[in-house]
């Protein structure tokens, strides 16, 4: 038994147990009341935690839903490797969708700015949901990520066109969720709503959950652009005049499309170090995401349009 497993058995955080139970309750409630379910799988740490919670909710049964990954074709290579290995080892059904129109038009993060996110993520997600006729989709959003998310319910109702209306949210009392939807409407469900970044890392540590190695600091080929550090994951990253690739010891706090996801300088090579770094951290994790800074209240707007 590894040293870490010993710790895991010795310590059981009461507040993590509460969060775990709440998430399991949500998974079971949705599985019992909806017909066409899917879990959105982003391959990141939150997805890894969500997957473990779902496995706990339905054990000894298999997951009563597939996992769906929206592949923009610009994800870190290590993410795709990790995704395929998890599907193989954990034996879940994996659906992968890429927006064929976006692909045909060569939409990419360098030339198309924020329309890239719309086409390759938002539109792609809508396509996949419509194609399979899913009426409920689990997402990994947490309320501590961003201000408008702090106001989102666990059950988020979307119209036929996948839009969110912050003024028409249903009250959520106790642990009683109203799961009724009108024809053509769907819901997004966020089992990790009440988890924080620190909770997620503590849980990964205590439960020994595998995560993508990109979270751990290592020497990686990087370039500095507008004060942020980007990893040159493959030959498609276009260097501007004067920019030079350099090896730096970095890690990532969130994972997404590599040209849009900035890393941080860090020496944290192991889980305990990452947890400590998170505890001491002086900036929130979404800072590394380019799309949030576009415009004031940008996340709220993206969500109203159907972005997860």
């Amino acid at each position, binding site marked *: 038994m590894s040293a870490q497993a010993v710790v895991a058995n010795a310590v059981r955080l009461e507040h993590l147990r*509460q969060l775990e139970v709440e998430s399991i309750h949500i998974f079971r409630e949705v599985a019992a009341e909806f017909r066409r379910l899917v879990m959105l799988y982003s391959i990141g740490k939150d997805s890894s935690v969500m997957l473990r919670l779902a496995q706990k909710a339905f054990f000894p049964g298999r997951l009563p839903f597939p996992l769906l990954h929206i592949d923009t074709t610009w994800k870190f290579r290590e993410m795709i490797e990790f995704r395929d290995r998890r599907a193989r080892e954990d034996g879940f059904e994996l659906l992968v969708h890429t927006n064929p129109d976006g692909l045909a038009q060569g939409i990419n993060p360098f030339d198309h700015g924020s329309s890239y996110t719309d086409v390759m993520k938002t539109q792609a997600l809508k396509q996949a949901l419509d194609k399979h006729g899913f009426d409920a989709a689990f997402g990994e959003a947490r309320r501590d990520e961003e201000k408008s998310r702090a106001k989102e319910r666990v059950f988020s109702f979307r119209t036929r066109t996948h839009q969110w209306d912050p003024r028409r949210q*249903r009250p959520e009392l106790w642990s009683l969720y109203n799961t009724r939807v009108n024809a053509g409407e769907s819901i997004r469900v966020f089992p990790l709503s009440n988890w924080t970044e620190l909770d997620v890392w503590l849980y990964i540590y205590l439960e020994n959950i595998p995560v993508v190695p990109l979270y751990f600091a290592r020497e990686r080929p990087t370039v500095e652009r507008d004060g942020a550090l980007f990893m040159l994951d493959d030959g498609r990253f276009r260097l501007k005049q004067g920019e030079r690739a350099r090896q730096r010891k970095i890690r990532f706090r969130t994972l997404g499309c590599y040209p849009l996801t900035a890393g941080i300088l860090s020496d944290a090579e192991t889980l305990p170090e990452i947890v400590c770094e998170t505890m001491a951290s002086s*900036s929130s994790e979404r800072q590394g995401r380019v799309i949030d800074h576009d415009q004031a209240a940008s996340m709220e707007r993206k969500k109203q349009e159907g972005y997860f």
Partner: protein
Amino acid sequence: MRAAEQTARRTLHEFLAHQAEKPSLRFVTCGSVDDGKSTLMGRLLYEAGALLEDQARAVERDSRRYGTAGDNVDYALLFDGLDAERQQGITIDVAYRYFSTDRRRFTVIDTPGHEQFTRNMVTGASNADAAVVLVDARKGILPQTRRHAHIVSLLGVRHVVLAVNKMDQVEYDQQRFEAIVAEFRPFAAKIGLDAFTAIPLSALRGENVVRRSPAMPWYRGPALLEWLEAVPDTRADDEAFRMWVQWVSRPNQDFRGLAGTIAHGTVRPGDRVRILPSGKTSAVARIVTLEGDVESATAGDAITLTLRDDIDASRGEAVVADQDPPEQADQFHVSLVWMSEEPLLPGRGYLVKIGSRTVVGQVTDIRHRVDVNDLSHLAAKRLELNEIGVVNLSLDRPVPFEAYAKSKIFGGFILIDRLSNATVGCGMIDYALRRSANIQWQHIEVDRQARASLMHQKSCVLWFTGLSGSGKSTLANLIEKRLHAAGNHTYLVDGDNVRHGLNKDLGFTPEDRVENVRRVGELARLMADAGLIVLVSLISPFRNERQTVRERLDTGEFIEVFVDTPLAECERRDPKGLYRKARAGKLANFTGIDSPYEAPLDPELVLRTMDAPPEKLVDRVLEELRRRQIIAS
């Protein structure tokens, strides 16, 4: 192992050792607008080190843009995350924030202060372990303070702080503080908040928020954060075992597990349990989790149970201790908070969700509405948005329950509108009405099929709905004549005629219309039970009530006939002169004029009186009855 890793491991273990046993504390903040709730929370987060640098910078930047705190940082902007909120400078929705100190992890549920958002306040309070009720030291106890304190108490929050804020504005005056506490105390006693803690503080200056303040040496109690860290964990595991079945796990033929979260008590393999409402009993075989089988599980654990006997149990049932089961009932005395713009109408059917069980229910009587300011009881025929009432609730099936004061999980429920699917209210069970236990269903051996077959027909209810003057009664009359001539046994219930007798006491308000339709529906049901072909001619303007009648009858027995005549044509015909009166303002609540008509979405028959003469329409109805084998062909 690298030195950095070793250090990290040590730091982490110290942190974990401190935190291990403490459950997270969820507390709700409430009080009137401008009492400084968001400022207090911003201050708490800032001082507890939970406000991260980039968030702090963002708040400073936003303060210059939207801020309402002059040169000071407007912490409210930290919580008011929606665009509309920042522009209007108010909190619309509940916000959730998280922070940890060395001693505990907290969830802050920040709720709106404006009266029109009371439902969000209720939502926040339903999940809170503790409440911080803010008061502005200059203004004292306001109606909204009382309203929120009342809701907090109603929702069963027992740990309450009265935080008297803005003490810096009253020169930290002890007498002012004590006067406010003295004013609040009798009110608190009346609403059942027997013990509360009063703390004088200044959120803006951080006095008595995290540390005790030297500015108020006369105050000897804890600072707010100290109090929050010390709120005791009140979960008990010595109660009888109770769990709603949430999900039945059947991965293969040999395994049948009942999955749920334990609401109360402890369970061990071998324990005798009972399934409710079915009443079947068995013993627990295994408690299954991903980490392996466990020897016991207790309140707050999410588990999967297997039973020794192969008995049927499904979602919506409860597994409970065989020796100490909860009561079951279908009629209750409950407190209700209404959360919808559409008012609560007694007699209207709603979905009632309690635990994992969803049934149909209706409020049979509003005992009174509560004035939250002075707690006086007011007479009411309906409940409007944000109103609180004490009502009788009747369900179509029994449910296992506990009083809300004893169990939030077996005593709290939500009401869902069956047509819009919106959550329209929430309620708390006080107790079961005794009548519920004493009225039994008398089994009668001769049933409706037996009665109907003697008459060589099948019973049914032909329900004619449409505007006044649309031709409902004319058509129903013609059809009854034809059926009668053919030897069928019929009865025609006319909306106007019942108002002379059975429904003499009812007027034309929405609540009276709901009751009118309910009674006619029950009357039609009894007659159908007698084996008759019942024709009902009734405007019955609301979908919901027609749906309720449909559900009270067997499948296929309710035939909704929409007599579709345009309003203009009805007005032109105006056989009773009622439209003229309504247009002249002499007749209120007239359907189509100042009271809505909700046309059927999926009726069995639509009769367009403009398109065909009555005889043709009558033939269509008779044809439909033959097709359904209600009458002989």
